[in-house]
């Protein structure tokens, strides 16, 4: 209510700096568009809350759940309402995204409300995944716009945006998110599944709020969409496809809520088509359509819930003849159904008039398709309402609270009032369209008793729709084939397949990774070696590998290296453990010789020491191990494949290492090394050479550490001795 007053007072807005580093502002403005969607979300929300206060206790009682859980539903609904209001008023794309995702989270909680029910949980997850995954595309789009223009404030963006590929791609990404939220083909499959939600949730989210958010976003960024005609055409194609697919599926299904879900897909297809048509007519039509549809559709969802509560029936065919027994419900939902089917004297009539008018502006083909779509709508709405309320009475009737009935009646009355006094409704829609269009919009909604094209089209649609409805039985078989085809080949299958595929991939990865320690070491070494090989491979070979002359003085070096290589080659061919150990230490000693020849006697000494110790250790260990074990081990033969693999790995690593060493030796010595600089500093520290200086510098520290070590060792020894003596 406050929103309506605020809007009539001319709107207004406020903004506070949010993250100045990022130039983010929490800017909100109650403009016409925000008013339209805000009034819908808050108004219908209020009625749904009333309805839910009667429905949810019954729902919980059916499932033998505690009454305490009622609060959870209401809490999530309030969260949803608040984020929806934030969403419609946000003028900053990042803030808008924040609320966008919050609605997704709230919807996840609401759809998954029956948490013991696996189907409900999966449906909730599906709804969330489809909407939230597409939402990240939207985020990329927003950030692309930011990278291009340096702002995410919508008014500034509208002012500076030019047609360019970046903008087109960015806007397309945002539009994909919007279409997924509005359950348009090919993202429509989540909506029927989401019918696992309790009925009040469907009545709210899936008629007036959640799915409306998608077309809201399209309207909000329409000035950017208009920059590229391809985007507009894309919207028309998707809209028309959704109209057809939704309509056909609605005509072919039996579940009460499913029919309504498919109908929602189809109805938002109209809106998307009109947004694609663009221009003043399209904008006005889209805004008015959302208004008319939301009122009627939430009434119908509530009807479905009330019928299910009263009779236990959840599908057409299980119920009938309720018109006599529940007249108020029948009247209310009749008005709502007439509204959707666009009969005269309801608000729905004007929504179709505007639609026809916008479609005709774009040509006769579109006009014809529009009539076909409207005919489908008429047919499934007629089937829905007559199926429930006419025919032979079936089943027991349980008493239901009046709060389950009169929200329907109230909304039905609103639909009729809108058909008689269309002024205020049209004003609301027109102001919204002005925002979308960023210019003046004429919205003329009145009855004209003449043979203008729109009237003829409407009559044509009724006639065709009635024909479709009357031939319902004939159509049953092809429609069920269509629905099965959609199920088998449609996007839902792709969704399931990708989820399953990911799970399989995850298991595969798990199997690959969970292995022995050797496997893990390989996992470090092999990619590391890969990086090295890559480094070698991308190096330009020009001048990197040079060969110099071989002076006579280097002959001993070559001999030592040759011995080293021979010893290394011998290792894999030895079978006895002792021989392997000896060959390995041969490699080590040959290397030590090389070091000493290269002028590094200290390194050589260390190497000799280490090699000696390890050779002795090996010999000692082998002496201690049982002889027969060693002999048996030595006789074991590795499989041929492993031998080949090992040989290949060894060769490859040998080649790469040689290349690295070769190229390292080929390059000039750095101009001035650290050692040169340190040596140059020696006189400043009053030393003759750098070694003396280092020794002098560290002598004190060295002594201190030595004393500490000795002291600690003594303490430890004394403690041990004391313990020993005592024990």
């Amino acid at each position: 209510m406050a929103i309506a007053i605020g809007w009539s007072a001319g709107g207004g807005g406020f903004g506070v700096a949010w993250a100045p580093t990022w130039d983010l502002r929490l800017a909100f403005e109650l403009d016409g568009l925000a008013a339209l969607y805000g009034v819908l979300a808050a108004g219908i929300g209020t009625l749904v809350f009333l309805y839910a206060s009667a429905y949810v206790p019954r729902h919980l009682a059916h499932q033998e759940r505690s009454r305490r859980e009622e609060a959870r539903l209401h809490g999530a609904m309030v969260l949803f309402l608040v984020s929806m209001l934030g969403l419609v008023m946000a003028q900053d794309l990042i803030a808008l995204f924040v609320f966008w995702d919050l609605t997704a989270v709230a919807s996840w909680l609401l759809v998954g409300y029956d948490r013991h029910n696996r189907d409900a949980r999966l449906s909730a997850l599906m709804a969330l995944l489809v909407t939230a995954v597409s939402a990240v595309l939207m985020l990329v789009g927003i950030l692309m716009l930011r990278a291009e223009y340096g702002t995410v404030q919508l008014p500034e963006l509208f002012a500076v945006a030019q047609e360019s590929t970046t903008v087109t791609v960015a806007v397309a990404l945002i539009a994909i998110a919007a279409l997924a939220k509005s359950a348009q083909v090919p993202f429509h499959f989540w909506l029927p599944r989401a019918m696992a939600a309790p009925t009040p949730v469907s009545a709210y989210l899936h008629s007036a709020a959640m799915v409306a958010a998608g077309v809201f976003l399209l309207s909000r960024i329409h000035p950017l969409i208009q920059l590229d005609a391809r985007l507009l055409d894309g919207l028309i194609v998707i809209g028309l496809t959704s109209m057809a697919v939704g309509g056909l599926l609605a005509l072919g299904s039996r579940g009460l809520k499913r029919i309504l879900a498919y109908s929602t897909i189809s109805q938002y297809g109209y809106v998307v088509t009109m947004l694609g048509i663009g221009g003043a007519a399209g904008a006005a039509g889209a805004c008015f359509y959302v208004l008319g549809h939301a009122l009627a559709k939430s009434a119908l969802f509530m009807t479905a819930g009330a019928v299910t509560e009263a009779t236990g029936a959840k599908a057409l065919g299980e119920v009938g003849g309720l018109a006599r027994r529940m007249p108020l419900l029948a009247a209310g939902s009749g008005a709502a159904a007439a509204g959707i089917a666009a009969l005269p004297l309801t608000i729905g009539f004007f929504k179709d008039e505007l639609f026809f008018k916008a479609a005709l502006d774009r040509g006769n083909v579109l006009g014809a398709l529009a009539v076909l779509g409207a005919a489908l709508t008429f047919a499934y709405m007629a089937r829905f309402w007559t199926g429930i309320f006419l025919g032979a009475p079936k089943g027991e009737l349980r008493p239901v609270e009046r709060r389950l009935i009169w929200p329907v009646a109230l909304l039905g009355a609103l639909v009729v009032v809108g058909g008689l006094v269309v002024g205020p409704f049209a004003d609301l829609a027109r102001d919204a369209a002005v925002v979308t269009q960023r210019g003046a919009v004429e919205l003329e909604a009145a009855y004209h008793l003449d043979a203008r094209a729109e009237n003829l089209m409407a009559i044509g649609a009724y006639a065709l729709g009635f024909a479709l409805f009357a031939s319902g039985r004939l159509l049953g078989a092809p429609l069920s084939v269509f629905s099965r085809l959609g199920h088998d080949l449609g996007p839902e299958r792709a969704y399931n397949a990708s989820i399953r595929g990911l799970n399989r991939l995850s298991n595969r990865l798990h199997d690959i990774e969970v292995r022995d320690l050797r496997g893990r070491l390989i996992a470090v070494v092999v990619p590391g070696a890969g990086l090295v090989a890559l480094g070698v491979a991308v190096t330009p070979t020009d001048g990197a590998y040079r060969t110099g002359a071989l002076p006579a003085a280097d002959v001993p070096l070559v001999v030592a290296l040759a011995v080293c290589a021979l010893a290394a080659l011998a290792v894999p061919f030895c079978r006895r453990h002792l021989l392997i150990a000896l060959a390995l230490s041969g490699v080590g000693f040959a290397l030590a010789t090389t070091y000493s020849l290269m002028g590094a006697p200290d390194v050589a000494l260390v190497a000799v020491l280490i090699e000696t110790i390890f050779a002795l250790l090996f010999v000692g260990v082998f002496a201690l191990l049982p002889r027969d074990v060693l002999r048996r081990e030595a006789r074991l033969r590795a499989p041929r494949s492993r031998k080949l693999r090992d040989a290949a790995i060894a060769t490859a690593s040998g080649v790469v290492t040689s290349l690295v060493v070769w190229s390292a030796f080929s390059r000039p010595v750095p101009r001035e090394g650290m050692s040169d600089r340190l040596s140059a500093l020696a006189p400043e520290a009053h030393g003759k050479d750098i070694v003396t200086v280092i020794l002098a510098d560290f002598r004190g520290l060295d002594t201190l550490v030595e004393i500490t070590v000795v002291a600690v060792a003594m303490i430890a020894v004394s403690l041990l001795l004391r313990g020993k003596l005592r024990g």
Partner: protein
Amino acid sequence: MTGLLAQATTKGPPINWEALSPFIALVAGGCIVLLVGLARSAFIRRQVVPVLTLLTLGATAGLGVWQWDINEGIVANAMVVDNLTLALTMIFVAGGIAAVFLSWRSIASAEAGEGEYYALMLMSILGMLVLVAANDLVVLFIGFELLSIPLYVLCATHMRREQSLESGLKYLIIGSVGSATLLYGLAMLYGAAGGTNYGDIAAVAAEMADDTLFMVGIGLVLAGLAFKASVAPFHQWTPDVYEGAPTPVTGFMAVATKAAAFGVIIRLFVGPLIDATTTWAPAFATLAVITIIVGNVGALGQSSLKRMLAYSSVAQAGYMIAGVVVTTQLGIAATVFYLAIYVVMNLAAFAVITARERETGLGDDISSLYGLGRDRPFLAWPMTIAMLALAGFPVTAGFFGKIYLINAAVNNGYGWLGVVIVVGSAISLAYYLRVVAAVWMREAPAASTSLSAVPIMAGGSPEGDEAAYAAGREPGADVGRVVSEDFGEPSIITSGPRISQPEVIFVAVFCALVTIAFGVYPEPLMDVARDAGEALQSLR
């Protein structure tokens, strides 16, 4: 003589004690904690030692704040203390403080000896600090080992649990291979550049960009550091070690080590190797893609929460690489921002896991969270917030972290990497939400599971433990009984007995609140991150 002395003082290298003070605080604190840990009194060991550890960490953080905005090379330019170092110090300290709270009653610290346990933790933090402050290859390696070796030991501190020992051993062996790879690479860089100081390397980086030795060095260093940062395909130790290590240690390792690894990657690659960007950036970006895919896909099938978080940490490492490869100040700021919030998001989750491990005996299995939403709001909400934040949902800091990174990527021609991040986080929804669903949409398991529950906790009371030690028994072995006496019949318990562990719940709730606070108003953290990014002045 006096003249000589005077000359010596003037000639002595200037030592900036103020800038060194955070390091000194950690060393001193570590020594004190180790010594106090020798005390016989259980009160001193159990209560005073953790408090001393907290004081040390607090002092380190305080000194870091005091030194904010200095930008100096210290110790003969072997280390640099600037806003990047200090910002990362805050992250390590935060991780350390949370780890102390989580370890307060853990059996691991009791078994290893409190003094040693907390001293090792402090030394590891010192290693991280040295690592990110390093301005010299030798210091880098010292920091690397000082960080790693205490962690190897900490992983194995839950000595009577086989997995803990296994995890420590595995980490040691695989970690040594990683260290060796790094060392090899450092040696090659030294060989190519002729100096170990970053300045020497920076001087030659441009002309060396296509030198084999230099490239191979970069490749090996990349592998070694990628290992520490759990970047695929060098991540394979992560799930095992995370799962096996005591949960407080895992939490500490997950957040602090990651921050340290990224700190040094930024320092080295976006520092002296900046002129060789064309050499390493493509390789790193490729690793980022592999990491994001492997991490997210790997996490899908895990039922162990710690394994799941391990893979998730792999994936998050992949996101953060994006901030490094773009080599802009914005990228560094994004990485630092992400690291900071990564700490709080993960610690909230690890705190909840710790709490439930002690209560249910289901370990870190996802079923330990069933029914939490109804009974334990102070555990359920932090877990939910942590998961939503990791998934990047709005109103949590994770959202800003992710858009910061994507923005940095998009702004510098890595738009495709931004798309990979987006695809990765789309996949990640599936496993993060599974946890949220377990918290809110599942009923607590039947009483039978909690009947056999043996909470993993060092006894209900210190006295009980002392008695157990005195009797030569393992404390905690009979804890199931102690707890069930304290908390009524287990048969009526639906989701595990409640154990008084306010400090763990405090960590969970506090981290969750911080996550939300920065999600609603990220400005202060963005300021810090921007300062840290501006520390690298050579960048745009």
